[in-house]
């Protein structure tokens, strides 16, 4: 009987040990695989982005092409949730739905507005670092008559496929800065989330008016 228990224990140890060593051995290669994925992902995203921006089509056509690219590669919902910070917990379901819808539009406007800035851009991929749940891919962006700029792209795999969840330019994270903006705004309006929603709506309306004036 004791022999049986012992042998079982031994078997458990052995299997645990093998499992551990397999995990240990496989982790560097899986990290390498992960890193390659992140690199390829940003490389492809950047290539498509540059090809759209540099193509000889009108600005409105470029915007139309850009929308699916961004929706496919940027996790706008996750970013939106992050940006609402501590107020996400207290928002009602209705507020959350409306907020995410507005945030989608706001972010798309912010990205498509910068279309002109990306003309004649080329980029190289640098260091890739692994964090808890995501990878940070460093890129050096060169534009004519501009000094090279270093930008980091945070790629998350939590949704199952690689998605951009943050952009860090000159040391400042875009989503963290946005969260500070929203948090301060809500805090200065007595914690009322609806004031934020109407402020974002106002921004979107102004943007639409400016676009129709052009």
């Amino acid at each position, binding site marked *: 009987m004791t022999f049986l228990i012992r042998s079982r224990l031994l078997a458990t140890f052995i299997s645990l040990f093998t499992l551990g060593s397999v995990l240990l051995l496989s982790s560097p290669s899986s990290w390498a695989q992960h890193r390659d994925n992140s690199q390829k992902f940003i490389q492809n995203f950047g290539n498509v982005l540059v090809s759209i921006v540099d193509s000889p089509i009108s600005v409105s056509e470029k915007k139309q092409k850009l929308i699916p690219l961004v929706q496919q590669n940027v996790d706008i919902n996750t970013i939106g949730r992050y940006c609402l910070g501590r107020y996400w917990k207290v928002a009602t379901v209705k507020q959350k739905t409306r907020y995410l819808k507005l945030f989608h539009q706001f972010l798309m406007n912010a990205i498509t507005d910068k279309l002109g800035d990306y003309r004649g851009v080329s980029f190289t991929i640098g260091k890739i670092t692994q964090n808890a749940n995501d990878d940070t891919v460093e890129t050096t962006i060169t534009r004519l008559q501009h000094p090279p700029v270093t930008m980091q792209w945070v790629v998350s795999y939590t949704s199952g496929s690689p998605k951009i969840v943050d952009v860090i330019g000159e040391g400042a994270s875009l989503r963290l800065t946005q969260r500070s903006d929203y948090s*301060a705004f809500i805090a200065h309006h007595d914690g009322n989330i609806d004031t934020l929603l109407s402020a974002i709506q106002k921004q979107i309306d102004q943007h639409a008016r400016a676009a129709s004036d052009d």
Partner: protein
Amino acid sequence: MLLLRRIFFRKIYFLALILSIGSVAGCSAIKAPVPKDPDALADYKATNDPYEPLNRKTFNLTMKFDKYALKPMAKAYRWAVPHVVRNSLGNMITTMYEPSVFFNDVAAGKPRRAGDIFARWCINLTIGLGGLIDVAKMLGFRHHANDAGLTLANWGIPSGPYLFLPMGPSSFRDGAGYAIDQAFSPWNYVPRGYGLISFNWAYNSFAMIHGRSEHLGEIDALEQDALDPYATIRSAYQQQRKAQAAAIRNDHRATVPAWYHH
């Protein structure tokens, strides 16, 4: 005589009373109340801005000055002066700040960075015609920013609370750093009476207008996109300073430039 003295002392007491009431009232307008809600408290700690009410006042005044004076001047300057000339003047301003960058590189214990700046200073002031042409950059000595605030940061001194000063976002540490940098700038030691003081004033004002003209688009975009520009600037500034200090700390390049080995 005695009466006069009494009146005098009464006046002094009255003045002291007004001052103390003023400072107490001032305090409540200077310091933000510490929130009790744990989530709000976490936010309060993360923003590191206990003097927010005072900072916001300074920020609003600065933005007003910007709107009615600095921005129009910067726009006019950009309109009137061709790009090439503006570029050269920008190079000159960069060169004039180089001594304090050099001292800070030395203080940070980064000989490679200090050497780059020293080479830039020597090359640009001579071949670069007093700093107007950035010849050093063409030779591979790129400019980098450094200031005493960053040096103090790398010496392990915490930033202290956030401050918005009339010259822009800062902190207790970076404000002290600004004072140190001024002390290290040779332009503040020019002898009086040679018209150099007025040169200094002109130069500082010009540097301000030039600096503003370089960021016309960015600040417009910020005012348009941010719902609370004060909070956005505060967050971006705090993150950026951390990144700048880390970049200096992690610069382990060899002292000898790469071309030396070829």
